[in-house]
């Protein structure tokens, strides 16, 4: 059922320490990569067709290939460990169980794009995880996997852990760069893209924790081998997190394309006693919900969930029981985005707040029928008009909830005595 590439040794409590990691074959991939031409490493990443695991799904190898080869500027690698999308907790697991895979993946990426300085930007609330990473990084420095001349070669690599201050928007890659530069975390207009003008205006690769942590496997086994797994558009395996009233919530590595219900029923053990499936948010709070009927058709892949009007997102599955309050759930989601909007762009700043206030009013039983049109109107006005995708991420679930649960909304805005 599970397909363990990345998670193969996670049962081993020593795997998170350098000793254990080495015993399990760790840091052989970076040695192999260092013996290859950097471009050949990029080629393997391309062949794997691995799509970025931070949510946007951009092909990782292609992203690396955009980094200019001839430049006088330093190049940077930034690992996005800001994991803050509600319902998402896969990167945290990697940091807990397999920090050296991440460090090794970063080193592979740095070699591929010829960067000598890498950063891990870690979510502010991850205090324990920051300590874990700090210790793993120190181990790697102490044993020559980081620092001057890594693995006995002439290649230098510094890796710096940077803690965020607790802002979802610093997970957006350019908001992260601003924050890393010591500024307020506010996304930048693109173009220019980070590949040419990223951190301190220098070429920068930004990848999610999972994207980087799986790189050692790809280098050792070949991109083509990775691409054989999964579906043509969603190659390889995926760490999928599941929360909600299921028997075994947690993070599982599966081959892409697994039916959603198989995942829920077999890996997560199905619904807990007395609970019936009501809806599933498949990929973090910004992905529109699926009805039980849609869940039956859904596969865990980019294309299947797109086709159903939702998205794979971060593959943070939130299972909702049939007695859940649609209005409460949506109010909570709307509140999150209103709280986290950085406030630069007018449609996002005002729209997220407007959605939340309207939802709050409906939740308080003071909504009116025209509020529902207003919710659609606001969402439509926010989409595709802002600097970053947070505005869209706030509008999509709103539209999805309205589309999926029209009766619940109707009922919520109908005066009690009329019901």
């Amino acid at each position, binding site marked *: 059922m599970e397909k363990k590439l990345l998670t193969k040794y996670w049962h081993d409590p020593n795997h998170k320490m350098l000793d254990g990691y080495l015993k399990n074959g760790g840091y052989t991939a970076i040695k192999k990569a260092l013996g290859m031409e950097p471009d050949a490493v990029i080629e393997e990443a391309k062949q794997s067709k691995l799509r970025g695991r931070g949510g946007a799904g951009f092909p990782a190898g292609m992203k690396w290939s955009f980094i200019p080869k001839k430049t006088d500027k330093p190049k940077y690698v930034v690992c996005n460990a800001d994991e803050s999308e509600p319902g998402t907790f896969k990167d945290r697991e990697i940091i807990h169980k397999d920090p050296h895979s991440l460090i090794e993946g970063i080193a592979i990426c740095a070699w591929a794009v010829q960067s000598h300085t890498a950063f891990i930007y870690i979510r502010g609330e991850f205090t324990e995880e920051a300590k874990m990473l700090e210790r793993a990084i120190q181990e790697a420095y102490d044993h020559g996997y980081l620092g001057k001349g890594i693995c006995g070669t002439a290649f230098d690599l510094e890796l710096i852990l940077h803690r965020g201050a607790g802002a979802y928007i610093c997970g957006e890659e350019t908001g992260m760069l601003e924050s890393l530069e010591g500024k307020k975390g506010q996304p930048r*207009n693109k173009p220019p893209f980070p590949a040419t003008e990223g951190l301190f205006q220098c070429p920068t690769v930004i990848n999610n924790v999972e994207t980087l942590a799986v790189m050692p496997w790809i280098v050792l086994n070949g991109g083509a081998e990775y691409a054989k797994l999964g579906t043509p558009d969603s190659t390889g395996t995926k760490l999928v997190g599941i929360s909600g009233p299921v028997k075994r919530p947690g993070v599982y590595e599966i081959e892409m394309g697994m039916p959603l219900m198989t995942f829920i029923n077999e890996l997560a053990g199905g619904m807990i006693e007395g609970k019936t499936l009501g809806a599933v948010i498949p990929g973090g709070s910004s992905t529109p919900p699926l009805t039980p009927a849609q869940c039956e058709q859904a596969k865990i892949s980019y294309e299947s969930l797109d086709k159903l009007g939702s998205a794979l997102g971060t593959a943070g599955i939130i299972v909702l029981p049939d007695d859940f309050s649609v209005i409460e759930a949506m109010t909570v989601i709307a509140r999150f985005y209103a709280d986290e909007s950085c*406030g630069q762009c007018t449609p996002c700043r*005002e729209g997220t707040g407007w959605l939340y206030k309207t939802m709050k009013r409906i939740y308080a039983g003071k909504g009116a029928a025209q509020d529902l049109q*207003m919710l659609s109107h606001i969402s439509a006005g926010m989409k*595709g*008009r802002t600097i970053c995708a947070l505005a869209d991420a706030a509008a999509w679930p709103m539209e999805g909830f309205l589309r999926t649960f029209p009766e619940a909304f109707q009922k919520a805005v109908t005066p009690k005595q009329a019901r």
Partner: protein
Amino acid sequence: MAQETVKITINGKEVVAPKGTLIIEAAAQAGVEIPHYCYHPHLSRPAVCRMCLVDVEGQRKLQPSCSTPVQSGQVIRTDSPKVQEAVREVLEFTLINHPLDCPVCDQAGECGLQNNYQDYGLYNTKFTLPKVHKAKVQKIGPTLTLDAERCILCSRCVRFTDEITKTHEMGIMQRGDHAEIRAVKEVNNPYSTNLADICPVGALTQNDFRFKVRVWYLKHEQSICPGCARGCNIVVDHYRGEAQRMRPRNNNAVNQSWMCDDGRLLYKAIRSEDRLNAPMLRKDGKRLAVTPSVAFSEALQLLEKHAKHTATQGSAFVSNEDAFALAMLLKMMQAPVAASLRESPAGWDDDALLRKADRTPNRTGASAFSGTEDFAVRLKNATLALVIQEDALPDRSLYPQLAGVIYVGTHDCPTAKAADVVLPMAMWAEYEGSFTNFQGRVQRFRPVVAAPEGVVPLWQLASRWSQAFGGKLFASAAEVFRAMATEHPLFAKMTFDGLGELGLCAPSTEQSKEAQA
């Protein structure tokens, strides 16, 4: 080197624009206005207000025209239903938390928000929820008042204080719809009032102008600030014959879009208490007001009597035409040329932005018609002193041989008090003329308000006196300018009208050489 250009299409019309031009600028050059709040030509482009979205063929999303450069072959629409809908909706978002207190807002009539919502017919708000409340009427410095509730968070003020003055007083605190503009320290930099100009709404207003006049009553005239050798291009707003405020006017070669705070208040000198409004004669130690013609003739008699023995102090505060007409008069009188110009009053040093330590507006122009000898030296051999504007002879007892002193100026001073004849002259805001700034740029100023009755500019007085010596009587400033342009290389090949709105540099000056290179 010819600039590379690209061809694009805006609303079906073919437009040629220099490579790298932003769409919003190329559109403006082609006469297509794109609504905008955060964009400002002299500040960085954060593209945050999202008002300027346009449709670029081949792009799925609308693009912010304020931060998207033109590209060859681009097909742009600003008038499609998709764009119109976007602008209307972005505007709606801008308005929901705005207090809409236009009736008591001093910006009303020149407010970017008000103008747009009227254009887009958004009178009835769909927003029925409680608005976010923020701090109102904050005195954030000697010159400005901030109402954070009216702020639309365009960040122009933040960028101005970060990028232009580098004083960093303004900042946006919090996030989401609680984001709030704040002064993080007292705003007292020498250019603070520009914030009131660039704020598109009534969030930042200038203390000097608040609640003075509703802006729709104001009339406007283009002028030049007389406050220093920079010669910032300005507009003077006036109402019922009185100047009400000064605002900068864009001139990239001189002041971009800015002016300094001290310059901005100079309109007050037009009606100040010590203004000389009427001619005076000094008889038995007392000053008597007389008619202009009496004063004029008294002065003329003195000039005729002492002609060759007249020592003249010119001024860097008068126009090119004034200085030239004065030089012509002295020539006809066969008097020595005017003494060297006096030093600028002290006050400030050159700074990195606009202000010049030389606080006279026309040293470059006036020195073209002055000599190099000091007035004090000239006075030793003179029997008549002719003093223009400067307080150059406060103690005439030092020169017992002087039989007379004529003072022509705008404000009273010890020299004027000791003069035998005092002739008031018009101030920069009361006549037309030109100043030559420190770069050698000759710039026109225009009459804004009427001079006190019977008061004329220096060039007219000088030219009329000069007529008595057989000189030419000039009928207009343009005519003086024409004569001046043939006489002096600083004005070579220029005409008064040819100065246009932005002025001209003579071919010999540095700036003009740079421009040609």
